[in-house]
């Protein structure tokens, strides 16, 4: 092997290890949020139990009034804690998704496995079973469909860079967000450019969302941002490894 080949392997290993570290950091944050969540739940139940015990067996009116005020105050605090707990649960669920997605994408150097993981992530975290994954052919100046689920693969076999939302995402490197697509117009709901070192190497096109999914939310955008770099890098690494194995 040449010096370049060794550099390639070292680079792949470095990227892989970086990704694993990122995934572990996400897991730790997830654990921290889960603990905080449990503590909040415990505090809520203790406060409720104490208040219930205090208000049983009607106390003298002045004391009752005082307790009522205290109860209202604690209820307000409980509401605040409840809202905080809901927010933490959402954040924790979002982190869990990000961790699983990062782990699945970076857990293999097999191209088929990466593509399969990518489709599973979109189907099970975003909620779409109409997906196209494109790779940029720089020589031809177009995007080539390398994997798809639930769409007319022939229709999207190659997409010119100046064509629609998919081409736009590849040209600009920006995530495209459309409205909720319907089967009739067959427009895309979202296009996520896959980048390596700031350069676009491909695009993930997400078409119709599942019926129970009313639209994209902030958690989906977080996941798109992760896919933008991690999916591109994961596919790039599989290509590098394949080239090194052929050499």
């Amino acid at each position, binding site marked *: 092997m040449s010096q370049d080949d060794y550099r390639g392997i070292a680079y792949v290993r470095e990227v892989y290890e970086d990704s694993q570290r990122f995934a572990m950091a996400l897991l730790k944050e*997830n654990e921290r949020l889960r603990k905080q969540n449990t503590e909040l739940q415990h505090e809520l139940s203790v406060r409720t139990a104490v208040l219930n015990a205090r208000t049983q067996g009607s106390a003298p009116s002045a004391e009752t009034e005082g307790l009522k005020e205290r109860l209202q105050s604690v209820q307000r605090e409980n509401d605040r804690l409840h809202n905080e707990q809901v927010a933490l*649960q959402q954040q*924790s*669920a979002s982190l*869990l*998704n990000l*961790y*699983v*997605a990062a*782990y*699945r994408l970076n857990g293999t150097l097999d191209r088929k496995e990466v593509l399969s*993981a990518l489709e*599973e*992530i979109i*189907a*099970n*975290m*975003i*909620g779409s*079973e109409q997906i196209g994954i494109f790779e940029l052919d720089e020589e031809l100046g177009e995007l080539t469909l390398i994997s798809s689920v639930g769409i007319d693969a022939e229709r999207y076999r190659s997409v010119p860079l100046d064509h629609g939302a998919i081409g736009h995402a590849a040209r600009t490197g920006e995530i495209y967000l459309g409205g909720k697509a319907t089967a009739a117009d067959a427009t895309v709901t979202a296009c996520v450019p896959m980048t390596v070192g700031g350069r676009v190497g491909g695009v993930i096109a997400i078409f119709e969302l*599942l*019926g*129970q*999914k009313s639209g994209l939310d902030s958690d989906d955008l977080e996941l798109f941002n992760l896919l933008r770099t991690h999916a591109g890098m994961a596919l790039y690494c599989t290509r590098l490894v394949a080239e090194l194995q052929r050499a």
Partner: protein
Amino acid sequence: MTRKKILLVDDAKTVLMMEQMILNQPEFQLITAHDGEQAVELALSETPDLILLDVIMPNMTGIEVLERLRSEPATKRVPIIMVTTRSESEYVDKARAAGCTDYVTKPLDAADLLSKVRNLLEASGGATS
């Protein structure tokens, strides 16, 4: 504390991993199956307290697994939550008719799934924690 055994069945590694992380609680012991046949085998040999079963799987679908398990004395009454991609009534009705206890739809809602699992385990055999 007796740990409740939960069998997770899905052909998608991503979903299994998500379910494992959501249900990674001290009161649960998790076992996994990657297809319908393995699910039936494990359900009969391990007799789990609850099964989380994907509907769409190659070779043997979740509905077929469900029908098979309901015909076996050992798994006749085990709570089974179906994991469906489609929330349309025809899929849900089909699963209900085959004997599923409850269902969740993808994308999975972590809080909803954990709450359903805990409630079903409590209803079927006492507190879980």
